[in-house]
């Protein structure tokens, strides 16, 4: 468990409609912060129209994200574990294995100065069932 001092700062980019340059701003700010030696985790919360990964595409190993999990997969795995009958419910820390968002982070492969790093958590695996997962998840 990270200490309080190690906890990062969360910055949310929000807009009331699409096409305003929100993802571009996120990508650029994330890159600038990493270039200044920060450890940056960019998360694509735009589940209905994910596109943040496109800005980082040249630096991703799995460019189309067909084999990379993301936010919706994280939520689904957690939900599945929460309703699983096989899990021992008496264990208070049952959720820790499913609460690690970094398990779904993919590195942006670039050597940033000052030991900066940038990782991306995409909206989710971009396969034929992505829309099913997003639209059906309650």
């Amino acid at each position, binding site marked *: 468990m990270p200490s309080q001092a190690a906890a990062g700062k969360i910055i949310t980019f929000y807009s009331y409609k699409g096409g305003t340059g929100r993802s571009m701003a996120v990508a650029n700010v994330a890159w600038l912060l990493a270039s200044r030696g920060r450890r940056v985790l960019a998360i694509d919360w735009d589940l209905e129209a994910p596109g943040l990964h496109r800005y980082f595409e040249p630096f991703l190993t799995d460019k189309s994200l067909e*084999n990379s999990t993301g936010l919706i997969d994280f939520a689904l795995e957690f939900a599945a574990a929460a309703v699983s009958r096989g899990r021992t419910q008496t264990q208070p820390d049952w959720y820790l294995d499913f609460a690690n968002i970094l398990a779904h982070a993919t590195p942006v492969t670039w050597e940033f100065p000052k030991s900066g790093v940038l990782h991306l958590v995409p909206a989710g695996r971009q396969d034929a*069932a992505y829309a099913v997962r997003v639209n059906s*998840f309650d």
Partner: protein
Amino acid sequence: MAQQITGEIGLQYEEIPCNAELHARLKETNKKRVPTVLISDPSSWTNPTIKKVMEDYDDKYYLNCGIVVPWDVSSPSADDRWRYLSTELCPQKTRVPPLNHEWTSISSPGLLKTKTLATVEEIRMRMLNNIAASGGDIARAEDDTLAEAAQARGISVHTAPIVGNISKSEAP
């Protein structure tokens, strides 16, 4: 293909042979809420064992179960096969197809994979939502230390965050 699909989405895979035991296995998977997809090859429908299985399946309705059929619409026997399916094998399930029953919509190997994947996920989501809606056996993630740490940073952990317009009186 089924093994590949389930592996990609992190599910376990088990193959169920299509024989006289199938109905019992479907009943079991339904009880255990396991997403189950039947892959049915039209060229096998005249086999007496398969025919009986399909006829039996027509009478059963399981929310955890779907069916995908590779369908060659250009085949000279396509019309005959449809007639056979819709009048003898599965008249009920072809007249009003239940959810996730893809009788004639899969016309290529690529579609077979994507439709099978979507079918598995739709069933999985339906199972998850059903369990959640039943309000029964759901574990919660509760940790006093985390809650206190969040509270200290001004994050409420007792109610879901509300996203909406800020009224003028609330705006800074």
